[in-house]
């Protein structure tokens, strides 16, 4: 049997009948150093559709206090990219849903961009989100090596992104677009405003070639469902980090969280 390439893993999400894709973010090395595969496995078992693993960084400028703190704790715990690559080796056996890595550019640059992409490819990682690597910079210097290892680069758009630029980003996307829900850094918020809904409607009306997932500020069943009215699904980060922090028992905490978001 031909091995299903990781590229197809993401694509299979969009072809699925039942929409409402739930993507969950957590920071590698948080709360404890060696829980990455345990958290991923429990997320998968509880019904998450996509996993985003944060590569911790000392200066995460696009992140709010919750994710900043998880980054800091992870680094204090001793998390490094080298170690994360080791931890990801076990994923091939245990994790069948797609995995995306999210993080800032400098650690990747030090790891070596080509080596990083190769290792991601070998470990079945489907894609990358690198907020401070601009689209043009990527196209000019890194697209080729990402493609060589079947890695999708996921670009962000925001309410301030012009229609013209959204279309341009859509043309250069290969999987999905990450629609940042508001002019903001990451952080759990409650409710979705009319202004945000107007922006989601604008995105819908653009009739893009690629699906978009809505992230930043999605925190509960209500905001998740609202996002799913307009998008293929949504991405939750800070609210999950908070849940991890508060969980007495990791497994139950994760299951309860995913079920509460999905309204199960």
């Amino acid at each position, binding site marked *: 049997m031909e091995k299903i390439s990781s590229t197809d893993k993401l694509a299979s999400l969009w072809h699925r009948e039942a929409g409402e894709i739930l993507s969950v973010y957590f920071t590698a090395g948080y709360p404890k150093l060696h829980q990455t595969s345990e958290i991923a496995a429990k997320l998968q078992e509880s019904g998450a559709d996509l996993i985003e693993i944060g590569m911790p*960084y*000392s*200066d*995460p*400028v*696009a992140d*709010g*206090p919750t994710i*900043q703190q998880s980054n*800091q704790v992870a*680094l204090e715990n001793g998390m*490094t*990219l*080298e170690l994360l690559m080791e931890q990801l080796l076990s994923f091939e056996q245990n994790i069948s849903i797609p995995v995306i890595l999210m993080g*800032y*550019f*400098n*650690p*990747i*640059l*030090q*790891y070596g961009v080509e080596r990083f992409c190769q290792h991601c490819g070998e470990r079945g990682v489907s894609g990358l989100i690198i*907020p*401070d*690597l*601009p*689209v043009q*910079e990527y196209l000019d210097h890194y697209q080729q090596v990402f493609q060589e290892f079947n890695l999708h680069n996921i*670009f*962000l*758009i*925001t309410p*301030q*992104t*012009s229609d013209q*630029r959204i279309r341009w980003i859509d043309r250069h996307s290969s999987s999905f677009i990450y629609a*940042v829900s508001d*002019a*903001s*850094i990451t952080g759990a918020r409650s409710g979705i405003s009319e202004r945000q809904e107007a922006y989601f409607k604008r995105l819908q009306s653009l009739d893009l070639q690629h699906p978009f997932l809505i992230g930043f500020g999605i925190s509960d069943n209500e905001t998740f469902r609202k996002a799913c009215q307009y998008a293929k699904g949504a991405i939750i980060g800070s609210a999950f980090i908070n849940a991890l922090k508060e969980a007495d028992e990791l497994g139950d905490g994760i299951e309860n969280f995913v079920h509460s978001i999905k309204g199960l």
Partner: protein
Amino acid sequence: MSFSIDKNGYYGSFGGAFIPEMLYPNIEELGNSYLEIIQDPVFQDKFRSLLKDYVGRPSPLFLAERLSNKYGCKIYLKREDLNHTGAHKVNNTIGQILVAQKLGKQKIIAETGAGQHGVATATVCALMGMECIVYMGEVDMARQRPNVERMKLLGAEVRPATSGSRTLKDATNEALRHWINHPVDTHYIIGSVVGPHPYPDMVTRFQSIISEEIKQQLKEHEGREYPDYVIACVGGGSNAAGAFYHFNENDQVRLIAVEAAGQGLSSGHSAATTNLGKRGVLHGSMTILMQTTDGQVVEPYSISAGLDYPGIGPLHAHLFESGRASFMSATDQQALEAGIRLSKLEGIIPALESAHALAALEQLEFVGNDLVVVNLSGRGDKDLETYIEKGKY
């Protein structure tokens, strides 16, 4: 070799704009309009007249005779310490607040380490009646209390940066985060030649008034338009960029950049970026920065809060890599001694940042008629407590 940016905002292979998409519209707006704005004659008139009547420019170029005798050459001090607010920082904040007005922004944010840039920003905001928020690391707020109060007195709000190591780099992160959250009505006045394109070039242009004046003043004093040496300290590198600017392409001028070695280059408590750092991305530009092998930013250390930054501007990374400028360093102790020396020999108490530039005089070998300009970037009032505590005078 060129020392100006190319069309993508790079000096050689350093620079660019490594920013999250959330900041793209702001950076694009600024990048597309800054040259047109600052080259407009009406803007230039306003900028120049504020520098003259408000800041007190031109700042004198003073022949320091006793210092010259000591080192066996002819040393001029470029007196940026005599500017309003006590440092070169105000050249940039005057320029940027006029840009912000032109862009129709109502609010200003800034980061500050020692508080000099914060004070210079609060000052121009008061002057223009604009709302001002300054981010400052919690640790720096404690060690630079008087500047915190000056900013408040000037009407600014000072917000503590409580993330990370709670110093300048974290204040910069907080300011960037604030800008992401308030992209439409706010302009971010960055305090040095760092950050995403077009900041390094824009700030360099505003600070280039320093070398423009040096040229004219040298011509008056010496009948020649360039010195043999220009010496400046480098934190992010704005006073050095301004002092070097009109000499970058003149190979007869030796450019000397002085970094803070802190307690010593190999002490683990240093801010000598070119010595200890590697190529990487910090605060939106490809540059040289102090980092771990895993690419995490290392917290720098220097006795002078203004040099306590883990990176340098991309222009300086290019000047370093190309060999156009020589990078040297001075320890806390050497800087203190140089500051005390200038106080006693010339009656000028320099900022500890500027004292690092003066310390380089000890390490260079001059011949009798060498013409040397040291950029005295700021005055030492703010550092009095450190001089009292750590200096031997």
